[in-house]
């Protein structure tokens, strides 16, 4: 933890720093603080810790069961309702959404860098990575899809429709050089399920993701190279 207040230049900003962290500081005081923060790494550390503390305090609020039907209404408002959306339309919409997501992730990095000017130095925008979605098929039938994302901490998300597998499966990444890397194991019930894991390799190194049963037989695979 930094020792805020030990520097005479910082002391006048002590209260404003806390108010800024709570998101309630405005006007000239905010402007002056931002100017100070641009030149003071100690206060930037203080600000980060105050902001984390404020977030944590917000997180202490207890969970309360929402009214019946809440989940369905929330998903309907998002336009997500598997029971009424035809699968072809869902995949067209997904393709468009993925394209938009990739564009927005890149744009988000630029926006992030823009709004942070004057404050702590932003990290490189390219670390945001990109999202790639591929169909997960078995014997010509789609059983789900795989989403991979790059960036500092690449991950893989696997969504499965009702496969009826009802068993423990293993996900392997087949790399472009032919090696196989076990990504993780998980239980697949008979109904829809979703599973995700951090990737031990960069998505650009992966040509295919395969799902194997306990005997090593391939249950499904997804081509991740365009």
């Amino acid at each position, binding site marked *: 933890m930094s020792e805020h207040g030990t520097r005479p230049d910082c002391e006048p900003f002590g209260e404003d720093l806390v108010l800024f962290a709570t998101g309630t500081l*405005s006007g000239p005081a905010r402007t002056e603080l931002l100017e100070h923060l641009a030149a003071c790494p100690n206060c930037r550390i203080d600000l980060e810790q105050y902001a984390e503390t404020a977030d944590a305090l917000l997180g202490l*609020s207890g969970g309360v069961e929402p009214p019946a039907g809440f989940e369905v209404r929330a998903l309907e408002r998002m336009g997500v*309702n598997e029971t009424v959306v035809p699968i072809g339309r869902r995949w067209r919409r997904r393709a468009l959404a993925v394209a938009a*997501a990739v564009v927005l*992730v890149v744009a988000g990095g630029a926006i992030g860098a823009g709004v942070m000017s004057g404050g702590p130095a932003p990290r490189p925008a390219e670390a945001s990575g990109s999202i790639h979605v591929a169909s997960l098929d078995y014997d010509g039938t789609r059983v789900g899809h795989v989403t991979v994302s790059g960036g500092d901490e690449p991950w893989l998300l696997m969504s499965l429709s009702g496969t009826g597998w009802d068993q423990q499966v293993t996900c392997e990444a087949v790399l472009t050089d032919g090696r196989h890397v076990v990504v993780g194991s998980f239980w697949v019930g008979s109904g829809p399920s979703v599973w995700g894991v951090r990737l031990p390799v960069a998505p650009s190194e992966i040509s295919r993701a395969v799902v194997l049963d306990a005997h090593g037989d391939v249950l499904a695979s997804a081509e991740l190279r365009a």
Partner: protein
Amino acid sequence: MERDGPTDEALLAGLAAGDELAATAFVRRYQRRIFGLAVGMVGDPALAEEIAQEAFLRVWRHAAVYDARRGAVASWVLTITRNLAVDAIRMRRSVPVDPDDFARTALVSDDRSPEEAAVTADAAPGLRRALATLPPDQRRALVLAVVHGHSAAEVSEEEGIPLGTAKTRIRAGMAKLRTAWVGGQVTR
């Protein structure tokens, strides 16, 4: 802490990509916390549901521009909810829940599901203890600022205290919680 199932970031990216299952998993993971925060702030369950529904809609719309480098998903989602609740209270001139009630709930509330416990930081017990030991006037001022989004001037007016006193209470309360929070993070 490791937990079964996808990370918040993975679900959020799935949401951005239009993944129905990821969206469903995300709503199931967060609905109790989002609704809990909303109802804890506004008191009225019907208004809280409106806020919580809108919060999910905003998360969905902005999932693609979420930047993990600027904070955890849980913090982002709860801040969206808090801001919506603050706006609703101001626009409808509703009577917000008393900050002491929120603090009481925060102090005793640990009825989280395993998934919720996993997305809530492990240092929460230390923070909860620190909140419990704050002088009541500091705790009220801090909750008004952090949870209700009130400026120091508004805290001053509501508590009937000078502006300088309001700022001092917020700062002192936050400093004690920060020590507990950062200490809890370090010793994990």
